[in-house]
């Protein structure tokens, strides 16, 4: 794994370009409902953030898959082997971020696969809120910061 996807909510403008480009890249149609990334905007306070698979180190989706259909590829992305998949949807229920989804149109489990090492959302994100950066200490810190917020969130409500 040379590079990681870094999400910085403070840079997100809520334009949803990533949703569109994601669904177009993967499904050939402009349909945010079929995108692997979702943007949530809170206009009242002017806050937006993309939510996307973080390719967890110990991934819940992989742990619960009964047939080992989810594995890590050379780019560090957790990818689904659709031929092996049973569509039991356990991975979708297990994902703490809700980032593993079932696509009704194609009848398969879908999730961010980092576009095979060249994420389309990163290329078109106008504000740089999603970036694909070298997996060095500084960038890991950024990602940990993002993750830590999630963690705090859970502790807060827990």
């Amino acid at each position, binding site marked *: 794994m040379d590079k990681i996807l870094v999400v910085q*909510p*403070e840079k997100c403008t809520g334009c949803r370009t990533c949703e569109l480009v994601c669904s177009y890249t993967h499904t050939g149609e402009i349909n945010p409902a079929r995108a692997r990334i*979702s943007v*949530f905007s*809170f206009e009242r*306070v002017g*806050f937006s*953030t993309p*939510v996307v698979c973080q390719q967890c180190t*110990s991934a*819940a989706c992989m*742990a*619960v898959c*009964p*047939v*080992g*259909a989810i594995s890590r590829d050379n780019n560090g992305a957790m990818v689904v*082997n659709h*031929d*092996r*998949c*049973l*569509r*039991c*949807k*356990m991975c*979708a*229920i*297990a*994902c*703490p*971020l*809700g*980032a*593993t*989804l079932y696509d009704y149109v194609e009848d398969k489990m879908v999730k961010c696969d980092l576009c095979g090492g060249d994420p389309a959302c990163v290329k078109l994100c106008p504000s740089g809120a999603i970036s694909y950066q070298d997996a060095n200490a500084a960038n890991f810190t950024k990602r940990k910061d993002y993750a830590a*917020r*999630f963690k*705090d*969130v*859970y502790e*807060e*409500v*827990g």
Partner: protein
Amino acid sequence: MKILIDGIEIEAQPGETILEATRRTGIHIPTLCYHEAFGGQGSCRFCMVEVTKNGSSRVVASCTYPVNDGIEVKTSTPQIDKIRRNIAMLLYKRAPNSLFMQTLYKEYLCTENNLVEDPYEKCILCRLCVNACAAMGASAISTVMRGTDKRVATPYDDASAACIGCAACAEVCPTGCIEVQEDNNIRRIWNRDFTMVACEECGKNFATREQLAYIADRSKQEADADELRLCTNCRRKVLARKLETFNG
């Protein structure tokens, strides 16, 4: 080792089956009971191919037959086509109620005969559901009885304590013969009623209690973790909202 498939020479690995080697080349061998997750069962015989070695040929099930050096495989011959047509016809006569078999029956140009049909039957006994259940670690269903009475069921058709109501069996079933009924917050499958867990945010029933226990166990999460109380969509939404609160 080198093997010849429909005149194309390919490199095969020891231990591989003919079906696996053939699929890599892009040549299609039709299958019914084969699933990549479980490997070949050799039970439907739909993947039969003709194997020739040292001048003598035989018909084998490609999903279980391991490759060996110097074999020549033919995936479609008049004899093979006839075998497939017969299987399609017999399975259709067994399960005429399934759209899957109706399509296959037409596709293989089967001819009408006077075998007795069971108009309600959908199951072709491919055992994919049994394998899926075993893969889930539940093994709640199995084939029962023998011969013409053979079918898939839970022990004595009772509600199985091992079943987690995940419906993986129904998902993997090619003919759609496993019934999953969802009524209000009850999912009924294999004669057992499961109480569905409703998403705390939107109220949608998204999983059975047993499914969540399975996930908590496998992914080492707390059984009552916050994320396991929300459906997939709300998990993202709630997460983003809490981030907002945190930022603000």
